[in-house]
């Protein structure tokens, strides 16, 4: 028997967790002598109060959707892919190569090519830990986290020694040609009289992310591969019984996961920076873990959680800009949200389950 209704599991628990995180954050802000209500106000207006704010919130959310989906797919096969960061960096490398060295007639074709390249690069980076896990039993958590460092070092080398334009002091590639610049929300939604999303980085890859949510949903719940992936995730011995090869599923799940993480580069590298810079991922690979946890590994949950974290990122930046609340404290607030929604899930879940059980008993 289910312990509580599905809506409580999917909606109520994250909301309560979020509320607790907010209360604790408010106490922290209070403790350093700032006004928490004003701070929340500032975050909300900064992130959601204008199309400019939304443009940033959705830009960040796009990154988190890709990495969140990446973590979620691996979760379904009971693997913890902490390597989203490195896979997204490699995806950026793929995007940069495609954009810089091929003359594209139009951004739309370039976007398709960039999607393919970023997925291939991200998947390739995930393939090695996947192979090591499947064939050699090296734990995926250890190997993917090490591969994040290797990716950073590789990117450093590529940017400093190979891809940096002659004479530039900046460890970054040249700007991508005009033809591959993606349409931003500003160019997509503004009219002559009314300019919206002015200067904000949100771009068309937001819709690529939404498409990815749908594709992942269909893959996990509507295809045979998704069936095998979930079966393997629930029980490895069960998978062996059913003739599902653990080696094959491990590798395929990680390839898909890596490809999704890599796809993030279409947003941050191609859509926003329009060149490849050092540390372009800015920790989005790790936020993806929290997003997948909070979204309960469901693409729709990932979508919502990504927007929440986009809000926290943008709101946090506004807070740092307009108050004397230090930047570090904003990281603390973000960490509290991750802690409550991800790690402390059971703290809210268990009392709530008890409550629902006793309510049901009374009803009987």
């Amino acid at each position: 028997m289910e312990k509580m209704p599905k809506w409580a599991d999917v909606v109520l628990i994250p909301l309560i967790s979020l509320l607790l995180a907010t209360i604790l954050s408010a106490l922290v802000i209070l403790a350093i002598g700032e006004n928490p209500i004003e701070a929340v106000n500032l975050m909300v207006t900064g992130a959601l109060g204008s199309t400019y704010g939304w443009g940033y919130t959705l830009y960040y959310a796009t990154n988190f959707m890709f990495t969140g989906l990446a973590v979620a797919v691996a979760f379904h096969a009971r693997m913890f892919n902490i390597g989203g960061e490195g896979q997204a960096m490699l995806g950026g490398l793929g995007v940069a190569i495609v954009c810089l060295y091929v003359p594209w007639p139009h951004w739309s074709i370039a976007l398709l090519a960039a999607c393919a390249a970023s997925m291939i690069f991200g998947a390739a980076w995930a393939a090695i830990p996947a192979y090591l896990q499947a064939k050699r039993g090296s734990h995926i958590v250890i190997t993917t986290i090490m591969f994040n460092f290797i990716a950073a070092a590789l990117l450093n080398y590529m940017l400093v020694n190979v891809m940096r334009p002659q004479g530039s002091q900046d460890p970054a590639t040249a700007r991508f040609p005009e033809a591959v610049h993606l349409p931003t929300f500003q160019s997509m939604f503004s009219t002559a009289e009314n300019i919206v999303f002015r200067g904000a980085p949100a771009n068309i890859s937001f819709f690529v992310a939404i498409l990815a949510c749908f594709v992942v949903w269909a893959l996990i719940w509507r295809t045979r591969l998704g069936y095998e992936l979930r079966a393997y995730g629930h029980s490895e011995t069960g998978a062996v019984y059913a003739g599902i090869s653990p080696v094959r599923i491990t590798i395929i799940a990680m390839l898909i996961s890596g490809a999704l993480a890599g796809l993030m580069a279409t947003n941050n590298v191609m859509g926003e920076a329009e060149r490849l810079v050092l540390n372009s991922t800015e920790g989005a690979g790790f936020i993806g873990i929290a997003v997948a946890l909070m979204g309960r590994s469901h693409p729709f949950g990932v979508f919502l959680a990504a927007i929440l974290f986009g809000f926290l990122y943008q709101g946090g930046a506004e807070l740092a800009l307009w108050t004397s609340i230090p930047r570090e404290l904003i990281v603390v607030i973000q960490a509290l949200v991750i802690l409550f929604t991800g790690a402390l899930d059971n703290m809210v879940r268990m009392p709530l389950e008890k409550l629902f059980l006793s309510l049901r008993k009374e009803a009987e």
Partner: protein
Amino acid sequence: MTVPAIELKGISKAFGPVQANKDISISVAPGTIHGIIGENGAGKSTLMSILYGFYKANKGEIWIKGTKTDIPDSQAAIASGIGMVFQHFKLVENFTVLENIVLGAEDGGLLAPSLSKARKELKDLEEEYELFVDPDKRIDEIGVGMQQRVEILKALYRKAEILILDEPTGVLTPAEADQLFRILDRLRAEGKTIIVITHKLREIMENTDTVSVMRRGQMTATVKTNETSPEELAELMVGRKVLLQVDKVPAQPGKPILEVENLRVFDSAGVERVKGIDLNVRAGEILGIAGVAGNGQSELLEVLGGMRPGQGTIRLNGAPLALSGAGSDGQARRAQHIAHVPEDRQREGLIMDFHAWENVAFGYHRDPAYQRGIFMDNAALRADTEAKIEKFDVRPPDAWLAAKSFSGGNQQKIVVAREIERNPDLLLVGQPTRGVDIGAIEFIHKQIVALRDQGKAILLVSVELEEIFSLSDRIAVMFDGHVMGERLPHETDEKELGLLMAGVAGEAA
């Protein structure tokens, strides 16, 4: 009337909405063996956990020797003279017998004085109850029967007056079980009170003084053993009349379907578990493999089912099967018309978090009938599930329920339905009724016999001798990776099979 050794008055315990125990009262006279019998999930284990202080009852009282006693934890249970022998022993494998007995009952910080004191007391106990074990052997060096004695000694060392044994014969050979009951007789003669929890009717009938029957959390009856019959107890357990024997006509064996020659299987640690066996199963017959758990039967099933590589020759309908590498996995076996009801339905046969309708495809999910383009045809799957649920009387009849929400018997019905409805040439069946209630056992046995009567070959592995006897047309006994011999069920008895199961060779079959 003497003061009861232990008396429960109106014990109730609920886990959320599930009423595990409901107003249970029993009274056990000192110096008797009292059986508690009931199906899985009837609440026997919950009741014993309350007695041993693992759970707290919502209502009710426990009286020990005429005194009302609170048992908040296991320490209190031990202090009031209750000793418990669990189904799964709680022993430290790489400690000696003596160290295990002392563990948790040491005096002071130094080990040596406790050990020498224990050694002396152990000697007295052994002599008093004729419970001989070598105190200096490590647990992993002694057999299961011996380990159980250590558990009993542990309880006696802690001055237990009331001994509770939970499914004590589950892992024993028939001979070891007989020895156990001799020990219990002896303990009873010395004035100890013994409570045995089991689902085996025969043990209850042969060894207890009184018996209580539990059904769905309630105590349905307490009767004197010599005034009842197995049929009456079974009916009390299930709540309706039950056929204890399977009705079947004599087998009409046809051509050999499965031939196994010199099969060897190594486990993942490289230990040889099946040591060159020969077997065959013909069309229209059930070959039962008897044996104590862990003598290579599981590995045999796993190789046949494509879950594990092996060496040697296996032929199906005369054609050799791949035993390792490509073409040896579960998918290949299914394509060759081998169906498999695995030993462990919770870890292998079902995905517990999947809906019933997802589980009905498990293993056959690549069947073209379940595909629609690049997607799975979930509607077809659900229709198929509805049909199987109806035909196999799965309760509750809800295709959307997760496998874990069904009772053990209904879970097994889902697995059996899935495998039998494939109309296989060979059906592998491992422990088909483990953890399954009597009503469902009857049903599942009927289905297996019906498949046999359609001329299919069936390989049955079970540790329950009763099941082996009632289903098999031929019996092979495995011990230590060898087939010790083959017998016909009407030409042998439990005693002879018990000897073979213990590795005592009979004349070659």
